[in-house]
C-alpha cells in the first residue's frame, strides 16, 4: 500500500512560526489545481503499488479548495490509483474555514478525516502565533465537525509559546479529551530559521522559547493523555485505540509515498525527492513537463539517493520516535553491531527500554530523542 500527499500552497495569512511552503497571494490558485492534476497524471507511475492506504491534503490551507477543485482532484486520483473503501482521506482545515457549508460538501466528498489546526484555545496564544482564527471559533469548530459526522478528527496543538501558562496548556489538552477527539498532534513551538518568529526573537520583539517550559508542558501532556487512555505512539502524536494516523505512520514505517504540488516530498524506498518550493516555478516546470514528457526533470524537483548508511540513520531517526521502536532485524548487516554497541549506554541510563531485541524510548528518553538518535547515527 502507498500514500499520496497533495500540497495546497495557499494561506489567508502567515502564522509567525510556520516554515512550510505557502503563499498568501491567491494569484495562481486556479492554475495550481490544474497543475497538480497534471502532476498526478504524469507521475502516477512513481508508485509501484497503486493501492492507496491514505490520501492527505496538506498545506498551506487545503480547506481553501472550492468544490470544483476538490472534485477534479478526486476524479484524477481515482483515475490514476486504486482508492479502497477503507482508505484514510484527510483534509487539513483551519477553524475559520469550518463552516456548515464547507462541512456539508466535504461530507459529500470522499474525505473521511479532518485535521484541524486549532493550536490553542486561548486568544493570547493565537494572537502571538498570528493564527487566522480566534478562541471562539476554535471551541465551536470541533462540535460542528462532529455534528456533521466527522468523528474521525485529529487536532493540532502547540505548546511552549511564551504566552502559554501550564494551566492554559492543561485546559487545552483537557478540552480535546472531553470533546472525544480521538487523535492529537501536539508540537513544541519550534523557532525555524527565516520565519517571522525567528526575526522577532532576534530583534527582541518576542521572548525566547524556554526549554524548561517546553519540557514541563511535554510532561504534562504525556501524563494527561496517558490517563485518558491515549496511546503515545510517536513523539508528537497520540491516539485512542484504533485511531493512529495511517498517513503519518507511513512516514515512520518507510512506506512509499508520492507528494504532489510545490515543495511536496516523495519517497520510493531508495531515494527521496522534493518539488521546487515556489508556486510560479512549479507551474512553469509542470507546463514544460507536459510538453516534453521525455525529460524527467525540468527543474521540478531535487533528488537524493539514500546510501545504506543514510537508510540506517533514517531508520534510527524515525523509529526511535515511535512506540514500536527499532530492532536490529530491520537494519542492514553492517550496522547491527554498531547499533548494539551504541544503544546500551542509553538502556543503562534509563532512556531506552529493551524488550526482546526491540528498543523503545522511555518517557525520559522521549525528551532527548534527537540527541540519542544522533549518537547512534553512523558517520564516516
Amino acid at each position, binding site marked *: 500500500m502507498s500514500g499520496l500527499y497533495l500540497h495546497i500552497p495557499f494561506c489567508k495569512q502567515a502564522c509567525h512560526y510556520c516554515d512550510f511552503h505557502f503563499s498568501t497571494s491567491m494569484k495562481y490558485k486556479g492554475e495550481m489545481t490544474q497543475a497538480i492534476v497534471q502532476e498526478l497524471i504524469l507521475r502516477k507511475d512513481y508508485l509501484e503499488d497503486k493501492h492507496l492506504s491514505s490520501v492527505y491534503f496538506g498545506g498551506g490551507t487545503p480547506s481553501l479548495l472550492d468544490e470544483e477543485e476538490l472534485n477534479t482532484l478526486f476524479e484524477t486520483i481515482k483515475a490514476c490509483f486504486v482508492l479502497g473503501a477503507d482508505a484514510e482521506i484527510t483534509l487539513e482545515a483551519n477553524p475559520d474555514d469550518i463552516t456548515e457549508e464547507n462541512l456539508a460538501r466535504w461530507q459529500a466528498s470522499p474525505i473521511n478525516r479532518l485535521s484541524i489546526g486549532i493550536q490553542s484555545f486561548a486568544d493570547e496564544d493565537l494572537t502571538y502565533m498570528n493564527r487566522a482564527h480566534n478562541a471562539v471559533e476554535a471551541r465551536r469548530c470541533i462540535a460542528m465537525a462532529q455534528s456533521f459526522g466527522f468523528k474521525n478528527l485529529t487536532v493540532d496543538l502547540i505548546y511552549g509559546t511564551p504566552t502559554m501558562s501550564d494551566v492554559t496548556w492543561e485546559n487545552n489538552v483537557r478540552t480535546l479529551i472531553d470533546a472525544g477527539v480521538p487523535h492529537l498532534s501536539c508540537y513544541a513551538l519550534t523557532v525555524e530559521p527565516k520565519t517571522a518568529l525567528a526575526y522577532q526573537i532576534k530583534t527582541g520583539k518576542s521572548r525566547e522559547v524556554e526549554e524548561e517550559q517546553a519540557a514541563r508542558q511535554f510532561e504534562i501532556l504525556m501524563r494527561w493523555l496517558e490517563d485518558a487512555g491515549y496511546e503515545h505512539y510517536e513523539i508528537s502524536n497520540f491516539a485512542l485505540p484504533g485511531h493512529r494516523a495511517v498517513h503519518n505512520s507511513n512516514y515512520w514505517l518507510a512506506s512509499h509515498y508520492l507528494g504532489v504540488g510545490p515543495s*511536496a516530498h516523495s519517497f520510493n524506498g531508495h531515494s527521496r525527492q522534493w518539488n521546487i518550493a515556489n508556486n510560479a516555478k512549479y507551474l512553469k516546470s509542470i507546463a514544460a513537463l507536459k510538453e516534453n514528457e521525455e525529460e524527467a526533470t525540468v527543474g521540478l524537483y531535487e533528488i537524493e539517493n539514500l546510501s545504506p548508511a543514510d537508510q540506517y540513520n533514517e531508520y534510527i531517526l524515525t523509529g526511535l520516535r515511535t512506540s514500536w521502536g527499532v530492532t536490529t532485524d530491520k537494519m542492514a548487516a553492517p550496522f547491527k553491531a554498531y547499533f548494539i554497541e551504541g544503544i546500551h549506554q542509553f538502556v543503562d541510563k534509563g532512556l531506552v527500554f529493551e524488550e526482546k531485541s526491540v528498543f523503545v524510548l522511555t518517557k525520559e528518553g522521549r525528551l*532527548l530523542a534527537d540527541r540519542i538518535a544522533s549518537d547512534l547515527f553512523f558517520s564516516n
Partner: protein
Amino acid sequence: MKHIRNFCVIAHIDHGKSTLSDRLLQTTNTVADRDMKEQTLDDMDLERERGITIKSHAVQMNYKHTDGVEYVFNLIDTPGHVDFSYEVSRSIAACEGALLIVDATQGIQAQTISNLFLALEHDLEIIPVLNKIDMVSAMVEKVSDQVIDLIGGSSDDIVLASGKTGEGVLDILAAIVDRIPPPKGDPEAPLQALVFDSIFNPFRGVIANIRLLNGTLRKGDKVKFIATGAEYSADEIGVLKMDNQPEKVLSAGNVGYIITGIKQSKEIKVGDTLTLTENPGEMIHGFEEVKPMVFAGIFPLDNDDFEDLRDSLEKLQLNDASLVFEPESSAALGFGFRCGFLGMLHLDIIQERLSREFNQDVITTIPNVSYYAYTKRDPDELVMVRNPTELPDPTRLDRVEEPYISAQIITDVEYIGGIMNLCIEKRGMLTKQHYLSPERVEMNFELPLAEIVFDFYDRLKSISRGYASFDYQPLDYRESDLVKMDIKLNGENVDALSALVHRSKAESFGRKICKKLKELLPRQQFMIAVQAAIGAKIIARESLSALRKDVTAKCYGGDISRKRKLLEKQKKGKKKMRQFGKIEVPQRAFLDVLKLD
C-alpha cells in the same frame, strides 16, 4: 659587484609591501604578466589568505637603468609580524639598502620603526616610499613630515608611489641604483656567507638562502656552517630568480642559494655563517638561536593518533625550524607534545597547518610563557617551568620569575589614555613617551610577556580603532607573585586548562574563564559545575544546567531528509569532543576559552 644592489623592504602589515613588490617584479619582467597573481612572493596559501608574509622570500631581478647599464637587484621580502622579528633582522643584515614603505593614508607604525632602527643599526641606506598616494585619504604632506622627523633628509628624498596604479615604480627602481651603495667585499678573502633563510623542499632537502659578504663559492666546494659545525658539499648553488637558477660560481656581494643534501631544516640555522672547510672565514656577528616565547601542549583528539601527530610535527619542523616540541603527558588529555612557538600567530599558523596539510585535529592547551622557579631547598638553582603543572608546590617554592618585554606602541594622541589604562591593567610600566609629531606619539612600556600573549593585541586594536601599532623585544626575567590556577569540571581538575596567573588577577581571570567555559560547553544530561581554584580554594564558579529537552517536534515526509542531515552534523561535532569523566568537551573550547572580553 658594482652593478649589484641588495635591498629589503620594511613595511607595516597592510601598507602595501606585497603589492608594490609585485609591481617591481612586473616592471623588471621578472614575472611575465600572465604568471602574475597577487602577492607573488607569498607562496603559502595561508600567507595569501591572511595577507601577511610568514616566511622570508628572496628574488633576483635584472634592471636596465637610464644609463643603459643592466643592474642585478636582490630583493629580500621579510615577514610582517612581530613573531618573526629575528628573521627580519637577518634579512636586514644581508642588505645594503632598504625601501621604507609607509602607507600615506596611515602614517608610521610601531613595527615600521623598530625594523627601521634595525636597518639604521646596520647602516642601510633608506629609501622612503609613500605608498597608496592614489587614495583620497592619502596625507602626503603629513606623513612625509613624520618620515623626515624620523630619518632626516628632505621631502625630495621621498618617493611617491602607488602599488595599485603603478605610479612611482620607475622612480623606485632608479633610486635603488642611484642611492643604495653597491655591496663591498673581497672575492679573494675567505668565504663568509650569511644564512638569512632556509626553505624545505621535499625533493631537494633544505635549501639555504645566503648573502656572500666575502669570498667566492663554487659548485662542489666543501662547506661548513660555523655555528653548527656541520660540514657538507655544495651540491648545487645558484641565484634566486622566480625559480632557483643554478650557477657554477657565486661571489662576494651576491645573494643566492645552496643545496647540500641536508634533510632537516633544524640543521640549518638562520643567522649562521657558511664558509669553506679549507681556509675558513670568521663567524658573522649577530647570530642568535631562535628562542620560543610561547608554549602550549598539543594533543591528538584521539589518543591513537599520537604517533601520527609526532610524524606531522616532524614534517612541519622540516620547513619551520623555529617550531620546537617534546613529548609530554597530561592527566586530562593523555599523550601529546609541549611545543614552543615564536608567538601566538606562530601557534595559530602551526595549528592551522596541522589541520590543513596533515589533516590532524588537535587540542591545544592554554598557552603560557616560560617561567623561572626557585625552590626553598636550593634557592639558587633555576627550575625552568614551561607548563603550569611543572611549577613546584607552593610549600616548596621560594620564588618565581617571569619574562618581561619592552614594548613600543605608536598611536594617535587621542588614544593615549585608553592605551595607558590597558597597559596598567596588564601590569605594565610606562618608561618613555615621545611625540613623533603633534598627533603621533610613541609610548614605551615594560610589560610581563604573559600579559600580551592572550588578548593584548586585539584589545589594543579595538581601543585605538586600529590606529595603534605594537612591537616588542624580550627584556629580562623579574620576580613576580604568581599562582597556579586550576579549572575543575564537576570537581575534576582539567590540567590542560591550568594557568599561571598573577595573584592580583587570579579571581577576575578565573571568573572570566568559568563564564566562557559555560558558554562553550554543550549542555549535558546532568548539571556541570565549572570552577576555578587556587590550591583547594575555589575562587570562581559557574553552573551549566542539565539539558532538559532535545527533540524535534515534527518529523513527517518533508522533514526526514533535513532532520537526518542536521543530526549527522551533530554526530560529526561529537567526534570532535573529548571526554573528561562523563563530561564532553569540544575541541574548540580549549582555544576559544581564552577569547575573553
